[in-house]
């Protein structure tokens, strides 16, 4: 297509204005940008919801920070908004209290600032909304239409929950099988509660900082209970109460929300739901979105890009729940008939995402590259992610495909 000259541009602008004026409501459309909703956020973030605040990182922006996702571009999925907390600045620790109770011998209440005096631990981890990739399901499930920008790789620093319990000389009861965390309800915020299995205690962290800075208020500051390897929803922001319990809590965030179908009375394997149908979620026929499943993403080339050939560098990241290492990442350029292995940055066990890269010899023209990761437990990703279709569109981990041109 010929380049548009100035006059054409002006005419088009005039036409655009006329078109907008034609609809009486058109001028009224002034959806706020991300930085207007949350102070300090990159204005390019996609506003999926203003209330509660839900912002997605555009994929091309996400890949510009392949090591660590900064607070300016990190996605937000709030179920609850605390008034005054819509900023990437830290929130004050002063006066923040955390109650720890339930099935333990000595329940206690803690001044959050006491945490500063305890040994600090750091963990790099993937924070991913369990709805990430939802838009790729067909038919479209209900909920925020995430594409792939509902994730990031961040470093949390704080006090291990285990260390805190030890410092207080507290012992857990035998029936303490779950950790239930409650978010603050200040400002009349609705209730938000999540439960995770007790083995999450191994790595649980009361995070006070993220990426070396005070934890952003909008991301749960001053104190967020973080479970490395678990989907975002479990990492309760603005944590106010922690309970050790013998069962999952029964609030809507645990049931029916944030669950996927399973064979009744088991937690595995996955029982696919008929796409488009309704599912009668119960505690016995579904499981919560807990551990992150194996996933991999192509950071370069990007969809539709034109790159120099014939040697094309293809790279990206892969991750799992951190229980075992990612042991291989494979790419295919022939629709999945054959796969070749990429180089992995590490084969250590990690909650962080792991970089991978490979160089492909490609003739000029259009190509499609696919990627899938494998971990040491033999887990991988389905070629067709729609196999796991579920009503609310959680836990997409279908093989990613990118079409690009080689010059």
């Amino acid at each position, binding site marked *: 297509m010929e380049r548009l000259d100035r006059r*054409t541009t002006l005419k*088009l602008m005039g*036409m655009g204005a006329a078109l907008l004026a034609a609809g009486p409501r*058109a001028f009224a459309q002034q959806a706020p940008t991300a930085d207007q*909703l949350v102070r300090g956020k990159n204005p390019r973030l996609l506003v999926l919801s203003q209330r509660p605040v839900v912002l997605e990182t555009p994929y091309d922006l996400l890949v510009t920070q392949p090591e660590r996702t900064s607070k300016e571009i990190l996605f937000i999925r709030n179920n609850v908004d605390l008034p005054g907390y819509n900023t990437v600045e830290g929130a004050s620790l002063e006066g923040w209290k955390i109650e720890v109770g339930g099935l333990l011998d000595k329940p206690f209440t803690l001044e959050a600032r006491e945490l500063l005096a305890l040994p600090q631990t750091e963990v790099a981890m993937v924070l991913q909304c369990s709805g990430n990739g939802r838009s790729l399901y067909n038919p479209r499930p*209900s909920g925020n239409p995430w594409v792939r920008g509902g994730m990031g790789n961040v470093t949390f620093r704080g006090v291990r929950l285990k260390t805190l319990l030890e410092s207080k000389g507290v012992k857990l009861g035998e029936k303490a099988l779950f950790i239930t965390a409650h978010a603050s309800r200040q*400002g009349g915020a609705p209730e938000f509660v999540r439960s995770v299995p007790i083995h999450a205690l191994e790595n649980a962290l009361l995070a006070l900082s993220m990426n070396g800075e005070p934890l952003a208020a909008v991301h749960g500051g001053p104190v967020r209970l973080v479970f490395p390897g678990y989907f975002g929803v479990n990492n309760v922001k603005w944590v106010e109460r922690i309970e050790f319990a013998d069962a999952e809590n029964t609030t809507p965030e645990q049931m029916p*929300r944030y669950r996927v179908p399973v064979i009744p009375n088991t937690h595995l394997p996955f029982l696919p739901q008929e796409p488009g149908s309704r599912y009668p979620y119960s505690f016995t026929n579904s499981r919560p979105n807990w551990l992150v499943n194996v996933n991999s993403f192509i950071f370069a080339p990007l969809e539709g890009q034109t790159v120099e050939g014939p040697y094309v560098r293809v790279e990206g990241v892969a991750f799992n729940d951190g229980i075992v290492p990612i042991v291989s990442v494979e790419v295919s350029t022939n629709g999945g008939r054959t796969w070749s292995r990429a180089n992995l940055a590490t084969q250590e066990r990690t909650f962080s995402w792991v970089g991978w890269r490979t160089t492909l010899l490609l003739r000029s023209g259009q190509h499609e590259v696919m990627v899938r990761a494998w971990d040491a437990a033999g887990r991988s990703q389905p070629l067709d992610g729609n196999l796991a279709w579920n009503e609310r569109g959680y836990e997409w981990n279908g093989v990613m495909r990118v079409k690009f041109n080689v010059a």
Partner: protein
Amino acid sequence: MDKRAYFLALPLLGLLGYLALGQHTLPEGPGKDLVLAKCQACHDIGLVARERLSRDRWDAVIEEMELQGLRLTKEEREAILDYLATYLGLTPPPEAPPDPGAQEPRTGAQVYAACSGCHGPQGEGNPPNFPPLRGHVEVLLKAEGGREYLALSVLFGVMGRITVLGQTYEGVMPGFTWLSDEEIALVLNHLASWGAPQGFKPYTPEEVKALRAKALTPEKVLEARRALKLP
């Protein structure tokens, strides 16, 4: 110049227009006001407007919302489900009814449906989350700068702690920028009908348009409120 550019640009502009219009508005149809009133008490209406679900799955969504605290009578539930399944279903919604009533200008009371979910059908409020408007609006309109603040709060929302008639509220009020200037003026005048100072001049769409250009954040609107001399 290249004529093809026009042909390429037209559908694009149309699409952009459609996306802009489609973002926060619900299609006209019976039950729309009830949906606005019930859903917006807790969340952005955009979450509803962009869904396309079967009747069965809308039923599941309502069920989930009831678990989250939504209270509906049997009739309200039926009306909401009918609306959602018809206008936000899997098949294209029917044409807007040729009913001449639909062409008539909306009234302030109709626009107020968007507010009643939180502030109550008669503006009575719902403590401790949502402040009353009856009585409160009158106080605002009597204060210096209160007239402008009231319009700004409807346009851009308010976030942070406020005290209304002796009680503290700390919720988040969303902005309603997606309403037209006319609709905002209508609803403001509806609020003023519950009590306004002597000689109150009705809001006009032009006045709303001028305020809209300020493009404030909800926190800035709170600052504007703090600057008022309220009793």
